[in-house]
């Protein structure tokens, strides 16, 4: 699903992706920080982890990482029971 917003011309593009991605993660003392991931053949370097939150689907814990580079926001999802990463959505200015 693509959503475009703005007045006369689209100011932004919000796209639901829901695709499995490969993520390079740094496991620190009390947190995991996505560093890089590959999507559509592009390697994207995470500049900032803006917010981390979690929810439960039954007993399975799912973590969400709201991250950004210089021009895009990405929502990454880590399913802890499968240790699988998904790129959930992308926002581009």
């Amino acid at each position, binding site marked *: 699903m693509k959503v475009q917003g703005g007045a006369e011309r689209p100011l932004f593009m919000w796209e639901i992706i829901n695709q499995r991605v490969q993520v390079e993660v740094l496991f620190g003392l009390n947190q995991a920080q996505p560093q890089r991931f590959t999507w559509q053949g592009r390697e994207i370097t995470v500049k900032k982890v803006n917010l981390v939150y979690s929810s439960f689907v039954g007993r399975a814990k799912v973590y969400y990482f*709201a991250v950004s580079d210089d021009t895009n926001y990405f929502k990454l999802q880590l399913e802890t029971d499968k240790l699988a990463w998904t790129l959930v959505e992308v926002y581009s200015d």
Partner: protein
Amino acid sequence: MLVDMNSFFASVEQQANPFLRGRPMGVAASLHETSCLIATSKEAKAMGIKTATSIYKAKKIYPGIVVVKNEPEKYREVSRQINTIFSDYTDQVEPYSIDESFLDLTSSKTNPVMVGMEIKRRIREEAGEWLTCSVGIGPNKFIAKLAADYQKPDGLSVLWASQLREVYGGKKLSDLWGISRGWTKRLAGLGIFTPRQLMDYPLANLMAMFGKPGYYLWQKVNGLDEDIIATEEDVSKSFGNSWVLNFRTMDKNLLAPVVLRLAEKAARRMRREGFVSSGVYISVRLADGGGFQQFRKLKFKINTGLELYIQAMSLWQSWKFSSPVMHIAVGFTSLSPKMNQTSLWPKQEDNLTPVLDKINDKYGEMMIRPGSLTRTSDYAPDSIAFGK
């Protein structure tokens, strides 16, 4: 002390997505044009787009507004993080709503102003740099709330009872926390329209008219409230769920699955907390502004969604809807802790319900559910209460 997060849901969204910062934006439960914004950013507020404005109206004010769908887990997580910070200063924390908490610092040795400043800094550092709050410090909750409202966003204000008369200047009774529309109407009947007039009204006359509630009201407005901080461990009085429908109908057959879904959700929460109920309520709001509500006391205890549903159905049987239903609320009241004593006449559900709970705990809510709830997953989705 009251810590009131500024434009909370919208600020959390701007924290998650930095490209939304500095932009008028709003959060809504649904992206339909008629849906209301449950939060607006500071930038949107500055343009006059307030909470509860419809998306359609917001776009009329500013066509470039960005509206995002709410994500309750995101806000709960940040709220949890913030409340963890509070617990470093006092164990008397009352989370009044998802974005407001009262802290009792009476026994703290640190100056409350220093605590307030430190909390503001720690929220930015630990929860997110875009998150700001207004801190209100006062001798009771009512005054702390007034103080927090004094400077928004990102303020810190201290208020004493002796300053109330000055602060009340230009305020209406309805601007004060805890003075309902009903009270405003009743007081208007006595010629009281402003907080200052209420302050000066003879207490004996107020008590003669309204009894004890009149005394409490006078006490509150004079800054003499003696309140207690209700911590999370305090007992709940009811468990209910409500939903603003995403369709409009007067057909009770189409509305029944909504009632059942709300009842199942309320029952799950109540059982998780270990309660049973001997009272139920249902209320319905209609598109034309009318509505119905009824409460029923039961002679027996219930704890399942189906039991609540059956009671609710019998309550609304006689109701005739003059226009489409837009809001339904249903819930349990008259709670008591569940006893584990084995009944002499066990019901089938007594054994079945814990098993169904276990399945849903393991695989997710509504994984196993009544057949009539099939294809109703968009009814009453996860939502978050705000305000109180």
